[in-house]
């Protein structure tokens, strides 16, 4: 059986590499943030911002390096992933710079820390580090299947990363959640990296165990229920995410890990029962914790009625301010630099950066951003579809699914759709860990998509044979 016939989702043999498409899109991804940057400057001070050249050239260089590395080391990669990430990162830089100009936020920071440090230069530096990690992924990892070897090591590393914020002296408690560690003046959110590392473990583990999990089952009420002993892994992961929730007060990360595991479990086993079990467990866990943990409870109250407790609770005020920022933007927004989303105060340029888009770019802008994210996720899932090996499929869908969940949890939180959780908007929010980890994530997706779309791969045993077998004449 030749590899060209067994599935329609794999790019045809001899498919164009699409590197020139990527380059053209990258030009837009650099030029659009430059325009946005000029727009902010003109709106706020009436003149072109002085740092324009620096940021424009900086972003352009990063994009150029990214492109050249992809062209050289992953020539058949999906052409949309890099431009999308660059555009989001560039616009994130503009938004962060715009919030740096806010006198209210400057004053707030001076009152809290004694001095004001603009976040945009740091963010540009982190973006450079992110691209560096992206390049490292391209150079070091010629094939994503290498990662299979590190399945159990990944588990240990991910657990360590998750537990680091709980280590006394290392972890810091900021705004109620213990998800940071502090090393030599730098705040790091290990959870952002753990997200990727644990996807390696899930993919490797499920690839090996999927048959047992899928086939050994009993039918009950129309559902194929797994055997008791096969419930072990999901119970462990569930318990772990509950522990994160309880000890680190971090609803977002907890939801992210559990959701990612359920998604990957479902894809690996094709058993709907896992989704039902997973949903049931997460609801039970969330309700149980929400009744006991005051921090989570406050968030839920703030979500239910932000204006009812506006004056008394910081959580309510934050979410109320965020919703009002969205509402004040209306359909077309106030224009960059002309809104008052800085009223949100702390984390206006991090967790709440989406509110600035809401106010200044309006409904139109927010929908555009959501569609950019949706496109990125879609390319990720498409990569999973195109991947030829089960590990690559699981890994890619795990990364994309986690990315989608993160967008939903953060954007849904700041828009009052679900209770707010302390997570960052990928690529947009100020914060080194987030931007670096997400560049690594995009790098991995690009690597998988390059392997998937590469023409004439060595004939490999088809893991999907049972599904895609073609009756030959």
């Amino acid at each position, binding site marked *: 059986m030749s590899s060209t016939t067994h*599935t329609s*989702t794999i790019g045809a043999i001899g498919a164009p590499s699409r590197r020139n498409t990527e380059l053209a899109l990258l030009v837009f991804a650099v030029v659009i943030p430059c325009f946005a940057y000029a727009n902010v400057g003109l709106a706020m001070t009436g003149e072109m911002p002085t740092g324009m050249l620096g940021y424009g050239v900086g972003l352009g260089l990063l994009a150029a390096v990214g492109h050249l590395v992809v062209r050289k080391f992953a020539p058949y990669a999906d052409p949309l992933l890099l431009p999308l990430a660059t555009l989001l990162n560039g616009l994130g830089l503009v938004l962060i710079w715009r919030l740096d100009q806010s*006198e*209210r936020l400057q004053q707030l920071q001076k009152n809290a820390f004694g001095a004001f440090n603009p976040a945009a230069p740091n963010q540009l530096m982190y973006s450079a580090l992110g691209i560096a990690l992206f390049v490292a992924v391209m150079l070091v990892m010629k094939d994503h299947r290498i990662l299979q070897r590190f399945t159990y090591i990944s588990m240990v590393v991910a657990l360590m990363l998750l537990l680091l914020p709980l280590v006394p002296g290392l972890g810091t408690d900021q705004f109620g959640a213990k998800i940071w560690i502090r090393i030599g003046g730098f705040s790091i959110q290990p959870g952002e990296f753990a997200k990727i590392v644990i996807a390696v473990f899930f993919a490797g583990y499920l690839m090996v165990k999927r048959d047992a999990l899928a086939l050994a089952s009993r039918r009950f009420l129309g559902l194929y229920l797994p055997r008791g002993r096969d419930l072990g892994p999901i119970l462990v992961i569930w318990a772990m995410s509950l522990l994160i929730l309880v000890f680190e007060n971090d609803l977002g990360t907890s939801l992210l890990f559990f959701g990612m595991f359920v*998604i990957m479990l*479902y*894809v*690996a086993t*094709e058993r709907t029962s896992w989704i039902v079990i997973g949903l049931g467990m997460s609801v039970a866990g969330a309700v149980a914790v929400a009744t006991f943990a005051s921090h989570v409870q406050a968030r839920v109250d703030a979500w239910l009625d932000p*204006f009812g407790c*506006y004056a008394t609770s910081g959580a309510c005020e934050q979410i*109320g301010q965020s*919703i*009002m920022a*969205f*509402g*004040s*933007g*209306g*359909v077309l927004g106030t224009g960059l630099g002309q809104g*008052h989303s800085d*009223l949100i105060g702390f984390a206006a340029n991090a967790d709440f950066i989406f509110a600035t888009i*809401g106010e200044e770019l*309006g*409904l139109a802008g*927010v*929908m555009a951003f*959501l*569609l950019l*994210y*949706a496109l990125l*996720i*879609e390319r990720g*899932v*498409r990569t*999973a*579809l195109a991947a030829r090996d*089960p590990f690559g*499929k*699981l890994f890619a*869908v795990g990364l*994309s*699914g986690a990315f*989608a*969940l993160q*967008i*939903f949890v953060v*954007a*849904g939180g700041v*828009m*009052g*759709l679900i209770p707010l959780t302390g997570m960052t908007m990928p690529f947009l929010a100020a914060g080194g860990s987030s931007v670096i980890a997400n560049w690594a994530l995009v790098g991995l997706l690009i690597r998988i998509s390059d392997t998937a779309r590469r023409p004439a791969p060595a004939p490999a045993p088809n*893991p*999907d044979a049972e*599904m*895609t077998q073609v009756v030959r004449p």
Partner: protein
Amino acid sequence: MNKPLRRIAIFCGLLMLALLLRDNWLQYVSADELRTHEKNRRVLIERYAQKRGDIIVGEKPITGSAPTKGSDFAYKRTYKNGEMWSPVTGFASQAFGATQIESLEDEILTGNDDRLFFRRTLDMITGKKQGGGNVVTTLNGRAQKAAFEGLGSKKGAVAAIDPSTGAILALASTPSYDPSEFAGNSEDDSKAWQRLEKDPDKPMLNRALRETYPPGSTFKVVTAAAALEHGLYDDPDEETDSPLPWTMPNTNTELKNEGPIPCKDATLREALRVSCNTVFGKIGSDLGKDKMLETSQKFGFNKEQFIPVRSSASTFPTEMDKPQTALSSIGQFETATTPLQMAMVASAVANDGTLMEPYMIDNLQAPNLDVIEKHDPKKMSEPLSKANAQKLQEMMETVVQQGTGSNARIPGVTVGGKTGTAQHGVDNSENPYAWFISYAKNPDGGSPVAVAVVVEDSDADRGDISGGGLAAPIAKNVMKAVIDSKK
């Protein structure tokens, strides 16, 4: 593995769809509600983003705007002679919101009014900064000054109306406050606000509009109007059926007069001149609750007035027995009125029985001073006929010429009025309220001004407090100021 993958793709799509729907809900469906939410500071930021329009009295602004530093508000409100004018303007404070005209006409003052939309768009295209429109009031600067200075350090209020139109000419309340003191949002502003809030004398209470006092004998004007209008008596000089002493129906309680005054079977004119409780108490009791209620409500009782600033409803009780009706008819029991209401009573009598709707905003101006809305005087009701009104005018003029209101006489001008001294406190233990309501007449008919004055308490001896002694001179000065300003 591809089937579940496609389902996961759909799931991710649904997540994004949920976000898109929620965003449409936030930014389209409930956008207006959130944009103008009371907790949305953007409303305030906008209010103070440019120079605020002014509130104008007699072509001179009584407000201003000053640029501020170190705040997200570009300008703050300033007031000229704020203590005198605050009962008119209300305040516009960055920290504490806005009241009265400052709040009601906020859209005009900030320039955000829909009627200014075209000009605003034009300004935007030509690059001109948005400006605020002006609010032109009906007030008379000299009358306001006379009222404010007349009250001086005493607690009280003055309301003066032009009876022919209903235009408010003076609206003073003391002790007052200067809204400039807390117009900003600094710590000093906060301190000033707290001091005013805690002040037991309640300087931020607009006594002319929002405080109701027992009207005492001034209410006898309403009772006299009811007697004439319902045909109980036709002639001011006909003897009334008034025994002395008079025991209130269904009780053993005698209604007392203030001292040995000639009230037995006194004529209406005489009874009003010396202020007989027995005569008017019996009239109220004879007419009955419903007729008294009908007349008093025609004068505006039991209803809030919007001038357009809200004025509290004055009360004439709706549930009473006969003795309570008698007491209510001499301004006791539960009868309580705002100074504005009593000025309306005087103005209806002075305007030959027609009560005009009181108002204090003459017109609204666009930033380029074009008039975009002008108030047309409106008739509110006709509490009494022209003939009866003129009879009542004669009686009130007698009160000033020969009776308790002699302190309100103005040489060369016909003045009608009525004094009142309202008891209050348990067993009348506190200082009574001194009332005076009056109007002046033009030489050629019609009346330029009707006024009501109340003085709450005073350092003066209890015995000296009487409408004629404390309140009438203030009313006189206010009327004189209006007449002089028309010369």
